[in-house]
């Protein structure tokens, strides 16, 4: 699969004959192109921190290791390079766990480097010793314990290769303290790894035939597209066929939100147009998606009349949940290009009735922004915010009702501009991810949309914004409750509201000011335009605290265990 090649690092930078493992590790990071790491120092990783100053690597000190892991995740999503986070042994390492699981579920390339107690102490319950290698086995793509200082270059090279190769994911490297302290010959070589390209399967002809025969074909676009950098390939294919398309939460941005062929997001909080089109389709061309339960609803009632062409970088996803009539595993760009060459151009005439049906669905299920009352209507505010931010904006969001409103009402025309915790659903993701995104895209606007529950999960990272003057603008939607849980308790637990009341929230605008950010608070509709102007015009990191109706719900909603054709609608507030 990969071919190691040897590179002599000593020729590139004159160094002493020996160096410590820590200095070697930092030098390897530079060699691998790492310019930014997120982390938090502590006992076992101190030798590595000792080697960082003057290395040319920018270290961002977050205020919690989870913030470091999630910031590395955000950085990686935007750059498509491995994000790097560091923590010390014990609690430092365990605090990375949620971030690593987040990256695993969303296939994000992250390399986590953890300090470990010295090798002779391992297994003795030493101070701050924890088996982070064992703890993280199920939530990393791969992991290492470096046992010999001389192994550092090879392990790092392989870890960065694995993190980004094929279907990306997090890789953990646990480094005992003695390995970083020991001296090693500085003239070490570093292997390089290259992906061997896979041939396009011959069944691509079967896929083209199925597309030519279909009467009601539909593209089903997933997050694998932006992971593979296949946006251009998929946009070309969609445009050439003229077939309508839906996307998953993570597939948003694969084709522009305002493309006439785009029907919207499917799934539990998807648009009515997208869900009904999927249910009516006779062919689904699934690209980089994995039939997640939030997207499909009740699986055996999902797209009941459709044959499936499944194109995915990960062969293990094909046939996992839904049978694929035509399977195209392997490189997405190559498969899409091969398919584009073989299919008929613009089947619009042949599919006129289907396309008109889809267009009618779009009109019938267009979002409405005319909710009654004076309180701020979150969907309308987010739509206005997105329009105000422009096409170059990146929006990172947290988890809950606001996450679904962002997906429904913001425009994503550029790949990797929508950062969301789709798989794990990590509350607290938005702020650190926004930090990572802004450091990766310093010239573009970066917005964080959060909720009053989520923001408190990583509120300490406001200090990181201030410390490095990272120009992230935060829109905090505050309904004084855990809104999504409250909505489900209202609808599916007979209104038995249990532990969702957050009416004793702190004054978020004041809190932001304490951290050194600019802030404002609004609570009525007539304040929105002025507040958005302030948010975008005022330089530097800031927080806009938006009070919304605590009773507001996200619509539509496919009830759990139901078909996507069963969408509940309710009052807009």
């Amino acid at each position, binding site marked *: 699969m990969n071919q190691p090649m040897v590179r002599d690092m000593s020729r590139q930078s004159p160094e002493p004959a020996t160096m410590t493992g820590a200095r070697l590790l930092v030098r390897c990071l530079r060699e691998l192109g790492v310019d930014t790491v997120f982390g938090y120092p502590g006992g076992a990783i101190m030798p590595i921190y000792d080697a960082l100053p003057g290395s040319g690597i920018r270290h961002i000190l977050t205020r919690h290791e989870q913030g470091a892991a999630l910031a590395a995740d955000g950085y990686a999503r935007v750059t498509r390079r491995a994000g790097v986070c560091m923590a010390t042994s014990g609690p430092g390492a365990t605090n990375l766990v949620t971030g690593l699981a987040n990256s695993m579920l969303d296939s994000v390339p992250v390399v986590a480097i953890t300090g470990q107690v010295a090798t002779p102490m391992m297994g003795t319950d030493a101070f701050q010793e924890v088996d982070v290698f*064992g703890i993280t086995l*199920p939530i990393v793509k*791969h992991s290492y314990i470096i*046992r010999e200082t001389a192994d550092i270059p090879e392990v790092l090279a392989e870890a960065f290769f694995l993190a980004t190769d094929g279907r990306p994911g997090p890789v953990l490297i646990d480094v005992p303290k003695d390995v970083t302290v020991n001296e090693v010959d500085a003239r070490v070589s570093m292997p390089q790894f290259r992906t061997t390209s896979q041939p396009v399967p011959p069944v691509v002809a079967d896929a083209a035939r199925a597309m030519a025969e279909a009467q009601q074909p539909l593209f089903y676009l997933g997050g694998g597209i932006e992971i593979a950098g296949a946006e251009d390939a998929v946009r070309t294919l969609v445009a050439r066929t003229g077939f309508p398309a839906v996307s998953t939460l993570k597939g948003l941005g694969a084709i522009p939100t305002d493309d006439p062929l785009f029907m919207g997001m499917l799934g539990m909080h998807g648009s009515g147009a997208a869900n009904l089109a999927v249910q009516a389709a006779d062919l689904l061309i699934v690209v980089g998606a994995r039939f997640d339960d939030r997207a499909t609803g009740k699986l055996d009632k999902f797209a009941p009349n459709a044959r499936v062409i499944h194109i995915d970088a990960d*062969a*293990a996803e094909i046939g996992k949940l839904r049978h694929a009539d035509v399977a195209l595993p392997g490189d997405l760009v190559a498969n899409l290009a091969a398919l584009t060459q073989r299919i008929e151009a613009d089947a619009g005439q042949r599919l006129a009735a289907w396309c008109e049906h889809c267009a009618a669905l779009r009109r019938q299920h267009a979002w409405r922004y005319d909710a009654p009352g004076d309180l701020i209507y979150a969907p309308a505010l987010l739509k206005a915010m997105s329009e105000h931010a422009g096409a170059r904006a990146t929006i990172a969001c947290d988890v809950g009702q606001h996450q679904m409103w962002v997906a429904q009402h913001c425009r994503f025309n550029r790949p990797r501009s929508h950062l969301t915790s789709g798989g794990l659903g990590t509350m607290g993701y938005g702020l650190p991810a926004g930090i990572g995104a802004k450091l990766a895209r310093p010239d573009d606007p970066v917005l964080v949309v959060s909720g009053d529950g989520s923001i408190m999960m990583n509120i300490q990272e406001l200090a990181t914004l201030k410390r490095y003057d990272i120009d992230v603008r935060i829109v905090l939607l505050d309904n004084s409750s855990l809104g999504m849980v409250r909505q489900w308790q209202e609808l599916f637990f007979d209104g038995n509201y249990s532990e969702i009341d957050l009416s004793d929230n702190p004054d978020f605008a004041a809190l932001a000011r304490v951290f050194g950010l600019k802030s404002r608070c609004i609570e009525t509709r007539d304040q929105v335009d002025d507040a958005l102007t302030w948010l975008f015009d005022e330089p530097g990191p800031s927080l806009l605290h938006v009070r919304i109706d605590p009773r507001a719900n996200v619509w539509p909603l496919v009830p759990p265990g139901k078909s996507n054709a069963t969408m509940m609608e309710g009052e807009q507030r």
Partner: protein
Amino acid sequence: MSVHFEIRLKPAEGALLRTLGLIQRRGFAVTELALREAGEGQLLRLALDGRGRCPAVLARQVERLHDVASVERVEHEPWQATVADCARALASLVPANVIEQQMTAEANS
């Protein structure tokens, strides 16, 4: 219904735990297991109860682990000796230098 796999593990720290953990998390119960050294790595033979899960999908999920060199679905039980096992066992009864001498003699003749 029981399914049987023969998995070759690379000589990597945690390879066995990682592989068994994945198999169990994907909904397969390990009902029988045999493990032995094989070359630089290990050969793991398993009998699994999939409870309606698809063994072919599991094979692809195991195959993508970096620690795994190969995955093969086999018919024999983990404890059953294969022809290759018997050959290997017989070979191990003969000292290596004897085999070497015999091969040299055969080559010369």
